[in-house]
Every structure is written in C-alpha cells, then in structure tokens.
C-alpha cells in the first residue's frame, strides 16, 4: 500500500495496513524526511521539494513510486489528491487500486453544482438556489432576487470555506461575486460560483457512508460539526445532541439514495445543514475519508480504514444497516499550530516539548513529536484529540481532563481555545450552530477553572529563571545530587 499523504492521516492509514498485514510505502517531501509517517513505513521515497505542488500533489511522481515499489494500491488520505478524479483514473490506468470511489462517481459528486443536480434527482432536500455555476453578476442578481436575501455565494470546486461569501443586501452582491470568484480561481483553478439561500443559524451535520462494489451501502450515523471558525471545523462530535432516531434515519436514507444513484463505492460523507425546525438540506458530498472519522469509529465500534481497504479489495461490506448501533459519545478537538491570541495566525516551528494525555477513553491521532519542526508548507493541524465516554457530558469532562494534561511547548497552539469552548454554558447545553464559535470569540466570555494561584506561578517562574540564568542548576542531575546530599545530612543527624 502506498500512502499518498503526510501527517496524522498517513500514519493512521499505515497503522491500519500494519494491522491487516500489508506492507506500506510512504512518500515525502524535503520538509518531511524525518516525519513520523516516514518513520513508521516499511519503505519511503522522496517526491520533491516542500511545496505541495511539487510533491504531494504530483500524481505522476506518486505513480512512478508505486511502480518502483511494486505497490498494488494507493490510499490518498484527505486533501491533496484524495478528490482528484484524474488521479483516480490514472491509478486505474496503470492497474493500481485507488482507495476511494470510482472516478465517475467523484466527477458527479465532487463538483458542488453537479452534486446538487444529482441531489435533486435523488429527491434530497437542498438549500434553494442555483444548481449551475453563475454566468455573471446579472444572473446572480436574478437568482438572489428569486430566493430572497440573505444568500451565500460558493465556489463550485470549493472546500474549507474558500470562495464563500455571505451577502445580506442586493448592493453588496456584485462585490462579493467577484471576490468569491477570484478567490475560487486562485484556490481551486476554477472561478465557477453558485448561489444559495443562507439558512440562518444552521447546524452542520453530516452522515458517514460506506458502500461496497456489490450495491450495498450503509450509513454509520451522523457527526455534528457546527463548531467552526471561518467555515473550518474545530470540534466534531458523534452523535449530534439534536438528532433523534427518526431524523437520523431520514438523513441516512437520503444520503444512501444519493450515493447509490451515482454508483458510489467506499467511504464518503454527505453534509447537511439542519435548521431549528429539524429541516435538513443537502450541502455537499465529500468523496473521501474525513478528518473527523475517528468520532464515528468510536461510537460505531468500526474501523473505517479497515473497511475502506476491504471494500477496495472487492469484499462485501461485513455489516448490514441493522447491525449499525451507536453507543456512547465521542468528541474530537483539532489541535492546530496557531495563535488564538493573535487572530489564529499559523505558528509553525520547533516543538520543544510534548506531554500527551492518556488514560481511559482518550484517543489521539497525532504525527508530531518533541524535536519535530512543524513545516510552514502544509496545513497546521498537529493532532486530533478524541474523548469517548458513555454520555456527552462525560465526554466533555473527559476531554477537559485530557486537555489539562496536554503540554505542547515551543509553538503556539489552540489548546486553550478548547478549554474555553468545553466550559462554555451554551456548548455544554448543545446550543450550537455554525455561527456559535465566532460569537463566543467575539463575546470574550471565558470560564476560569483550574487557574493556579499567582504565587505558585511566581515561584515556578523564579525557579526556572534562576536555573536558566546560570545562578543555579535546576537540572535533573543537580536535583539528584542535592537529594543525595540531603539524605546524607539526614543520615548524619541520625548518627
């Protein structure tokens, strides 16, 4: 198995392959020679310089490595080439299995506008708006006037919040249209944008699917991903606190209908917006394994990467819909190298210290270590910390406990932000929507808990400062010495 990715997801896939007795081939850029995914693989090949366009996005180089290493299959992870239908096709052309859906299904469901057409055909409710790219501002104005403001402009090829603009009044539409279109052009190489009605205070809830080549497709419950900042997910949980049996079944069946209509195979996720009245609207489909897949694994007891590999080898799904049972509650925090104090600016650099949490119900998918320099060339995600417990409240408290144990030294991280969210009354009461986090950040609302007394901080800082200044050596060795010295004195006194 060749893993055409880096970071925690590459390591996640390598671990699954090891468990299934497959040998693994890592690829790396110059920034990643010492990365954990390389150190865990059986074989490793250099792709090129650090920029993704010259390394992890070079499908031609990756297939060349596959040939040299004799790899039978390629797992694309998420991001990079994972939703690139041309790459999936190129794999098939040289007889390498692409772990994901067929290129044809990716083409239909990967484009947001084509996916909306497919959703209409599968009779899925979707947000009112255009199903095709808008030709110009005039067309945008016509569509917006038809559905009513506020509206949202979105890039057809988009993801991660790029090329999106909310427009509340008609006079802002022209400016937002050109801004969204040029941002989409820069980010995805296509300036195509479409428009839909802005659902106010929606929740972002998505359904995990798994389909095999034999026409079987199951939904594995939902994930609540409403805690977002600038359309980037920050915390995900499963199940959603507001999704009951009936809503889950209706959303799940709609998602399965869409996947089957497009001939979908392997893991995929259908994203929905859910309003306060429990109406759900199709948003888009992600034709890959998602970052947040661990929360689904914990509540279903399934290993999605194992399933991906078995399905890709032509096996039938080992489970039927009625075998899928949800148990407990899982929460995931995406830990980023960024500075919450400074507008979430990325903070790459050397990790000088890493103390990771453990104990009951804690899973961490992480690919950094003390001594690792976080490259500035890629997404600044360091780790996914996941807490699993019988109830949502217990999972929140378990996560808070784990965050208290966690120390990442040398770079700025968003660890403190999670504590703030998880102690917030609205989050604990599950009163969340996609605007929740921005409101929390703007409010300055924060809970003080487990704050050390001032004099303790002062003593600790002074002891460290005294040792750093060379006035004393507060190193482990010296400590050992004085302990022996103290013991010697006690012995002396006893005599």
């Amino acid at each position, binding site marked *: 198995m060749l893993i055409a990715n880096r970071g925690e997801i590459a390591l996640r896939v390598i671990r699954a392959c090891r468990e299934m007795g497959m040998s693994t081939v890592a690829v790396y850029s110059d920034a990643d020679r010492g990365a954990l995914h390389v150190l865990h693989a059986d074989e490793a090949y250099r792709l090129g310089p650090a920029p993704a366009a010259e390394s992890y996005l070079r499908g031609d180089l990756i297939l060349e490595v596959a040939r040299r290493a004799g790899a039978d299959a390629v797992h694309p992870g998420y991001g990079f080439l994972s939703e690139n239908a041309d790459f999936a096709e190129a794999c098939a052309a040289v007889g390498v299995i692409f772990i994901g859906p067929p290129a044809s299904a990716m083409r239909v469901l990967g484009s947001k506008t084509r996916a909306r057409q497919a959703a209409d055909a599968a009779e899925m409710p979707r947000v009112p708006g255009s199903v095709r790219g808008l030709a110009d501002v005039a067309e945008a104005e016509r569509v917006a006037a038809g559905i009513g403001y506020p509206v949202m402009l979105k890039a057809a090829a988009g993801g991660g919040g790029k090329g999106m603009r909310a427009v509340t009044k008609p006079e802002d539409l022209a400016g937002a249209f050109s801004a969204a279109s040029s941002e989409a052009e820069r980010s995805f190489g296509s300036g195509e944008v479409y428009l839909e009605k802005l659902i106010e205070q929606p929740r972002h809830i998505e359904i995990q699917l798994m389909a095999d080549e034999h026409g079987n497709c199951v939904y594995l419950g939902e994930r609540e991903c409403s805690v977002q900042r600038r359309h980037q997910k920050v915390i995900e949980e499963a199940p959603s606190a507001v999704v009951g049996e009936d809503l889950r079944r209706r959303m799940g069946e709609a998602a399965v209908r869409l996947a089957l209509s497009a001939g979908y195979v392997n893991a995929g996720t259908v994203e929905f917006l859910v309003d306060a009245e429990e109406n759900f609207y199709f948003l888009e489909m992600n034709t890959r394994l998602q970052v947040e897949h661990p929360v689904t694994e914990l509540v279903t007891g399934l290993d999605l990467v194992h399933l991906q590999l078995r399905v890709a080898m032509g096996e039938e799904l080992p489970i039927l819909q009625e075998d899928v049972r949800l148990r407990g509650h899982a929460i995931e925090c995406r830990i980023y190298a960024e500075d919450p104090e400074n507008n979430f600016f990325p903070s790459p650099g050397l990790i*000088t*210290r890493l*103390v990771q949490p453990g104990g009951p119900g804690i899973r961490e998918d992480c690919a950094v270590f003390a001594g690792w320099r976080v490259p500035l060339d890629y997404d600044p995600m360091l780790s996914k910390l996941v807490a699993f417990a019988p109830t949502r409240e217990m999972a929140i408290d378990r996560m808070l406990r784990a*965050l*208290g*144990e*966690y*120390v990442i*030294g*040398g770079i700025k991280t968003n*660890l*403190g932000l999670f*504590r703030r969210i998880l102690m917030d009354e609205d989050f604990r009461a599950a009163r969340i929507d996609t605007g929740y986090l921005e409101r929390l950040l703007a409010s300055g609302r924060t809970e003080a808990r*487990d*704050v*050390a007394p*001032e*004099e*303790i*901080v*002062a*003593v*600790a*800082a*002074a*002891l*460290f*400062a*005294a*040792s750093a*200044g060379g*006035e*004393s*050596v*507060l*190193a*482990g*060795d*010296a*400590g*050992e*010495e*004085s*302990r022996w010295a*103290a013991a010697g004195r006690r012995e002396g006194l006893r005599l």
Partner: protein
Amino acid sequence: MGRGGAAGGFAAVTVWLEIGGKKHRVQVPSGVGAGVTECVVDGRAMHVDVRVLEPGVMSLVVEGRQYRCVLDGDGVVIDGHRYGFEVEDPRSLRGRRGGGAGAEGPRPVKAPMPGRVVRLLVEVGDEVAEGQGVVVIEAMKMQNELKASKGGRVGKIGVSVGDTVGAGDVLVVVE
C-alpha cells in the same frame, strides 16, 4: 537576580518577575533540585517542596497542593494553562541584547518594555562605568533604572524626559 541571604540553608537568589502585568519579587534558593525549601513571594514566605523531574519540568507541592510545572519558552504551563512571565533583571537583559555588538564598539541601552522616560542620569560625553545607571523609565507604575552594560563614553542620547518609548527602542548609546 541578585544574591541575597540564605533561605533554607541554600544561597538565595532574588528574581524580579512580571506575570500578567503584575510585578513580583521572588526569593528562591539556588541549587535545589529536590527538597523542601523556603521561597519568599512579595515578602510572604512559603514552604515549597520542589522536585525537578527533568530540565524544564518540575513538581511543586505547597500545603499539600501539587502543581506540575512545565517551562515553555517565556512561560510556565500549569494544569493546561500557560502563564507568560518576564524576568526583569539587569544581567539577563544584557544577555538578551548581547548578540550584536561585541565587547568593543558602541553598546546601546534599549528599553526592555514600553514605558515613559522619567529621568536621564547621564549627558553626552560623560564617562560611565559598567553597571552604572544611565536612564530611568517607568512602565506599569514601576520605575526601572537601566544600566550601561559596559564602561565607556556616552555617545548619543536618543530620548528626552517625558518621551514614550517602545520595547527595543535605543535610549542611550555607550561607546
């Protein structure tokens, strides 16, 4: 930091700190890696059981409460919270600006923090000795006398009394 008397049988050092905008004067023993010692914070003495676990990581037990303290750059992490601190010390300041100029050549005296110039202790052309105070700045209601890091002649004074200065601004140059 300066050598003071003795605390708990060890030589004590005094550290002036600023944590979250508040100044503290802390006396801690030097040379302690493990054991119960007396520390004095802003004039209040406390018994602290110190155990250094590895460089930059220690456990403090005070009145039965345990704190795992991890050094992270210019901050201490305790129970998941990071507390930034700044050491206000003539010698550590010297260390910080020592990078550029060597023992020879002009040596600037820079403002370690934003503040206001309240007093100039020298004039251009004065001979100063190493460690002699040259300018006093006030920040957060505290006055700090900044000292020449080496002896020489005052070549330039870049500020006047009453000026507001930013961190890193050159106040006086000793040649």
